[in-house]
C-alpha cells in the first residue's frame, strides 16, 4: 500500500496540476473507491482537498510511521494530493462512511471484550440504586421474556443480592424481594443498580447465612423449602455436577444450601415455566464463576420468578403440594445413598490367592475372548494353571538373562531376547511391530521411542 502511494507521490511532487490529476487518476485507477473522476474542474478539487486535508491530520497520526513521505507533504500544497492519495489508500480498507467521522470510524469497535464478566461488573457497579426506586416501579413486566433473558443473564448477580438485602432489611415476605427483583430484572438503570448493588454488597458482606435464613424464614417457608428442595432436586437432575461443584467450591455448604431454597424456589418456577433458558443460564453462570455463579443461580431464579410471581402467584400454591410430595422421596433417597457405600462389607480375612487370581482372571477373560467359542468353567481353571506355569518360566528366564548381562534389574532388552527365543520376534518381525499390533496407544507411546519437538526423543534411549 505505501508503495502504491509512493509512486503517485513523487509524481505529484513535480507540482503540476496535470500530474496531480494524473496522480489522482492513477490513484483512482488503483483504488476502487468512488472518488471524483479525474476530469473534475479544479474548483471541485479544492473542497475535496479541504476534506482531505482535514482527514490528513487525522490520518497522519496513524500514517506517520508507515510512510516517510507523509512528513514531506504536510506543508506542501501537494500535501493535499498526497494526503488525498494517502487518505485514499488508507480509506480503502475503511468503509466510505468514514468520511464524515474519520477518527471515530477509524477506531475499531472494541466493545466485544469480555461479555459476561464485564457485563456483570458493570451491573454491579451500576446496581447501587436505592430501594425506593425499586418499590416505585410497579410495572416489572414492561419487557417481554426475550428482553428479560439477556437482562437476567446480565443482572444475575443483582437480584439475589437485592432479594437478600430486602428480606434482611424489610423482613418482608417474599413478595417484596420478588418485587425488588422484578424491578431489578426488568429495568436496568444505572442509578438503581448502583444503589441496589451497594446495599446488596453490604448485605452480602454481612453474611450469607443471615440472608439465606431471612429469605427462607421470612417468605412462605414451606413453599420455599419445598420448592427449594424441588429446585435442588431439579437442579441436580438437570445440572448435576455443575451445581455440586459450585457448592463444593463455595466451601460452606450450609449457607449455600440455605441460600438455595430462596434461589431455587425461583429456579424451579423458572424451570417450570420457561425451561431451558434459565437452566442454561444458571449453568453457564455457575460454570463461569464460582461464587458469582453461586449467587447467579439464585439471582437468576429470582429474576424469573420475579416477573412470573406477580402474574401467577396462585401457581406457587399449586407448586407447594407437589414439591412437598417430591421432597419426601428425595429426602429418604439421600440418607440411603449415604448408607450405600458402607453397607456391602465382606467380613473375614481375604485369602492370599485372591489378588493373584483376580490378576490371572484378567488373562483368562482374554483367553475366553480370543477363543471365540464357548468354554467350560473347568477349562478356565486349567488356563489359570497354565498361566501360572508360564509366569514361573518367565521369571526364571528373565533372571537368567539379567544375570547373563551382569545386572540385577530386568531391562527391556531381556524381554526382547525372551520373545526372540520364544519365536515371536524374528528378523522379519521386530518387537516394535508386535507392540504396535497388540498394545493400546498409551503403552505404545511408552515403549516405542518417538521423536518430539525440540530435538528430543521419548522415551530416551
Amino acid at each position, binding site marked *: 500500500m505505501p508503495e502504491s502511494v509512493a509512486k503517485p507521490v513523487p509524481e505529484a511532487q513535480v507540482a503540476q496540476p496535470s500530474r496531480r490529476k494524473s496522480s489522482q487518476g492513477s490513484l483512482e485507477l488503483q483504488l476502487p473507491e468512488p472518488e471524483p473522476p479525474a476530469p473534475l474542474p479544479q474548483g471541485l478539487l479544492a473542497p475535496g482537498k479541504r476534506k482531505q486535508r482535514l482527514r490528513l491530520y487525522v490520518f497522519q497520526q496513524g500514517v506517520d510511521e508507515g510512510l516517510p513521505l507523509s512528513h514531506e507533504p504536510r506543508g506542501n500544497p501537494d500535501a493535499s494530493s498526497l494526503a488525498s492519495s494517502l487518505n485514499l489508500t488508507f480509506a480503502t480498507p475503511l468503509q466510505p462512511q468514514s468520511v464524515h467521522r474519520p477518527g471515530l470510524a477509524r477506531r475499531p469497535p472494541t466493545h466485544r471484550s469480555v461479555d459476561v464478566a464485564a457485563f456483570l461488573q458493570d451491573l454491579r457497579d451500576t446496581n447501587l440504586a436505592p430501594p425506593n426506586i425499586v418499590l416505585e416501579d410497579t410495572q416489572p413486566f414492561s419487557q417481554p421474556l426475550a428482553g428479560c433473558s439477556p437482562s437476567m443473564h446480565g443482572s444475575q448477580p443483582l437480584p439475589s443480592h437485592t432479594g437478600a438485602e430486602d428480606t434482611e432489611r424489610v423482613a418482608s415476605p417474599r413478595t417484596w424481594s420478588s418485587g425488588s427483583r422484578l424491578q431489578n430484572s426488568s429495568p436496568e438503570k444505572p442509578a438503581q443498580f448502583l444503589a441496589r448493588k451497594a446495599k446488596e454488597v453490604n448485605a452480602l458482606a454481612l453474611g450469607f447465612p443471615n440472608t439465606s435464613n431471612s429469605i427462607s424464614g421470612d417468605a412462605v417457608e414451606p413453599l420455599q423449602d419445598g420448592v427449594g428442595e424441588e429446585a435442588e432436586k431439579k437442579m441436580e437432575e438437570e445440572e448435576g455436577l455443575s451445581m455440586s461443584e459450585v457448592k463444593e467450591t463455595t466451601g460452606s455448604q450450609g449457607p449455600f444450601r440455605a441460600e438455595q431454597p430462596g434461589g431455587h424456589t425461583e429456579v424451579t418456577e423458572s424451570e417450570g415455566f420457561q425451561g431451558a433458558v434459565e437452566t442454561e443460564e444458571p449453568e453457564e453462570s455457575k460454570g463461569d464463576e464460582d461464587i458469582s455463579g453461586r449467587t447467579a443461580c439464585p439471582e437468576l431464579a429470582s429474576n424469573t420468578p420475579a416477573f412470573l410471581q406477580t402474574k401467577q402467584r396462585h401457581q406457587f400454591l399449586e407448586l407447594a403440594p407437589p414439591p412437598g410430595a417430591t421432597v419426601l422421596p428425595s429426602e429418604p433417597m439421600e440418607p440411603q445413598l449415604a448408607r450405600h457405600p458402607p453397607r456391602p462389607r465382606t467380613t473375614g480375612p481375604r485369602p492370599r490367592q485372591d489378588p493373584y487370581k483376580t490378576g490371572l482372571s*484378567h488373562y483368562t477373560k482374554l*483367553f475366553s475372548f480370543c477363543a471365540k467359542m464357548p468354554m467350560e468353567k473347568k477349562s478356565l481353571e486349567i488356563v489359570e494353571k497354565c498361566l501360572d506355569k508360564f509366569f514361573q518360566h518367565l521369571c526364571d528366564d528373565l533372571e537368567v538373562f539379567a544375570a547373563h548381562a551382569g545386572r540385577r534389574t530386568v531391562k527391556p532388552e531381556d524381554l526382547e531376547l525372551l520373545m526372540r527365543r520364544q519365536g515371536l520376534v524374528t528378523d522379519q518381525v521386530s518387537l516394535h511391530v508386535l507392540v504396535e499390533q497388540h498394545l493400546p496407544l498409551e503403552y505404545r507411546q511408552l515403549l516405542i521411542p518417538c521423536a518430539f519437538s525440540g530435538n528430543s526423543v521419548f522415551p530416551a534411549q
Partner: protein
Amino acid sequence: MAPPNTVSQKKYIKRKAPRGFLRRVLKRHKPHLRLEKSGDLLVHLSCLLFVHRLAEESRTNACESKCGVINKEHVMAAAKVILKKSRG
C-alpha cells in the same frame, strides 16, 4: 485410566495391563530381581501373545474334535504344546 473399550465385557475386553499385578508376581517369584519402568508392559505383551497362541491352539483342538465347546482336554493338549514353545 478408563479402558478404551465400551461397556459390556462379553464382546469387548479390557486392554489395560495389570501392571501392579505383574510387578507383584515377579517380586513374589524373584524378590531379588528388579523391573524397569516399561518392562512390565513387555511382560504384558508376552502374556498377551501367549494367551493368543493358547486360545488359538485350543480352538483348533476343539474344532478338530468337532466339539462346539472347548473342553479341558483341548486346553490341556494345547497348553502342553504352547508351554513348550514359550519356554525360551
